């Protein structure tokens, strides 16, 4: 439904987006993760057609954004980072305007408006002017606008920003329901959100696509150098030496946590039995209070990819 083929964007001599390729299939929700300024919004804007790539090709619902963007626009719903609302219009006038431009006509208009109004729970504010609405309602009017005209593709730039927990829950349900038959690309800062509703995650930093896989797949890939955390009553330096000697431990960081206890974080490789060997070594000299294999969370995965790419860029420069 959405397809990017080596898309790049340059402003003057500055390259904002470097050769990005990925696709989102029908019935799929893909999360778009990256720190601020990574190029998420620019990529979204290029897919939506509000700016054009310097090179590469983007197709939406089978239409080339370069040459057939009018046909593509009819099948696309887009919620930018700041919901594009006309403050002096009331909610229903605003939605009617967008619906009309999207080609919803006379008879179907009423049903279509009712559909998005109830999906986004806007019943209470339909007659109110938009400038009077709270941030949460503004965001939902923006989402309602994107859903108008039954698009095949939904692009959402931080759709849950500014919502309270209840509203976030409701919004996720709307997105999930849409994702059953359409294609969704959604950018977010909230990592758990990605695990909750996305089938795949694309991680982007510095305008480069670092990884795209299912949340589980990304976690697995990063488990190869996992962490084992132990708490022992011991001296820091001798403990470090002993641990480094254990087979499968590649790095150890020890910090004192008071009362004669130290906490050691060991970087170990994926093979089984490392924990057992560590426990054996410690038991010979000290008393072990805690041993725990840390699961890599999506957060760690994300930070790893982002830090790696930052380092690579530094080395390249």
């Amino acid at each position, binding site marked *: 439904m959405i397809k990017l083929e080596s898309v790049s964007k340059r402003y003057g001599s500055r390259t904002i987006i470097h050769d990005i390729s990925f696709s989102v299939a029908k019935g799929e929700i893909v999360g778009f993760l990256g720190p601020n300024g990574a190029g998420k919004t620019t990529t979204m*804007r290029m897919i*939506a*057609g*509000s*700016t*054009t790539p310097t090179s590469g090709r983007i197709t939406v619902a089978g239409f080339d954004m370069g040459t057939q963007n*009018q*046909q593509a*626009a*009819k099948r*696309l719903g*887009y919620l*930018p980072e*700041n*919901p*594009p*609302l*006309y*403050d*002096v*219009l009331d909610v229903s*006038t605003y939605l009617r*305007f*967008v619906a*009309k*431009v*999207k*080609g919803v006509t006379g008879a179907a208009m009423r049903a279509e408006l009712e559909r998005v109004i109830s999906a986004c729970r806007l019943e209470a504010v339909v007659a109110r*002017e938009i400038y009077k609405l709270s941030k949460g309602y503004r965001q939902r009017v923006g989402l309602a*606008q994107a859903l108008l005209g039954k698009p095949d593709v939904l692009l959402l730039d931080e759709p849950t920003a500014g919502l309270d927990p209840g509203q976030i829950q409701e919004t996720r349900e709307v997105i999930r329901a849409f994702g059953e038959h359409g294609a969704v690309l959604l950018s977010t800062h909230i990592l758990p959100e990605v695990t909750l509703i996305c089938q795949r995650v694309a991680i982007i930093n510095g305008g480069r696509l670092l990884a795209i896989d299912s949340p589980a797949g990304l976690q697995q890939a990063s488990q190869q150098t996992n962490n084992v955390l132990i708490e022992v009553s011991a001296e820091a330096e001798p403990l470090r030496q002993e641990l480094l000697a254990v087979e499968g431990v590649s790095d150890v960081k020890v910090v004192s946590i008071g009362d004669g206890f130290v906490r050691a974080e060991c970087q170990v490789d994926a093979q089984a039995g490392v924990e057992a060997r560590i426990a054996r070594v410690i038991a010979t000299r000290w008393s072990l209070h805690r041993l725990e294999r840390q699961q890599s969370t999506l957060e760690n995965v994300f930070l790893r990819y982002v830090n790696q790419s930052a380092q690579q860029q530094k080395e390249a420069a």
Partner: protein
Amino acid sequence: MNGVLAIYRKEMIQYFRSPIAYFVMSVFLVGTGYFFLYNIFSTGVGTMDETFRNMGVLLVTLIPLVTMRLFSGEYTGRTMELLMTLPLKPWEIVVGKYLGAATILLLMTSATGINLVPLYLFGNPETKTILSGYMGFLLMGMACLAIGQFFSALTHNQIVAALITTPILLAFWFIGHLQAYQSSPELRGLFGYLSFSLHFGDFIRGLLRTEAVAFYFAVVGIALTLNTSYLQWRR
């Protein structure tokens, strides 16, 4: 065409839900009424000639207030992003907005018709001259609107849009005066050709010249084309 209509309707609602349209119209009507009475009583002649000229200056100073928000407002409200991603072609946006502004012009022009009531009651005006004066006034107003709309597309700041448009419209209004200081006939011709007020003067005298009509339409066409290409280039 559906897009033009949708944009046009949105524009009209926006005009009448913000104070600017009411403000511009009242200033224009009060001003025109004052000039009308002043001209009638000071000259004792029952014509619209002088009043049309005064209306022209008023128009040139008020148009920037109508056009300044057309695109600048969309940029600052972040709604340009919506317009550029909806199934709308840039020309549809430009034309829809222009027709909205032209409707405001038409409304404020027709409202000045109230001055004609005493003119016809107590005087004996030439209907053809008045009609041609109004036609010239509308054409000139349309040219001013197109210029103002184009400059509004160039900046995010409404005030800046108005501040650029005003001197440019004033220049088009006064450029005819420069003729007096030029000896070369080419420059004199050019200044005369570009002058909004000289062409308007023909209409006021009841002279319907194709050249003048074509001139105003050409200004509208050029400004709106530039406007459309600018939006395309901005992507």
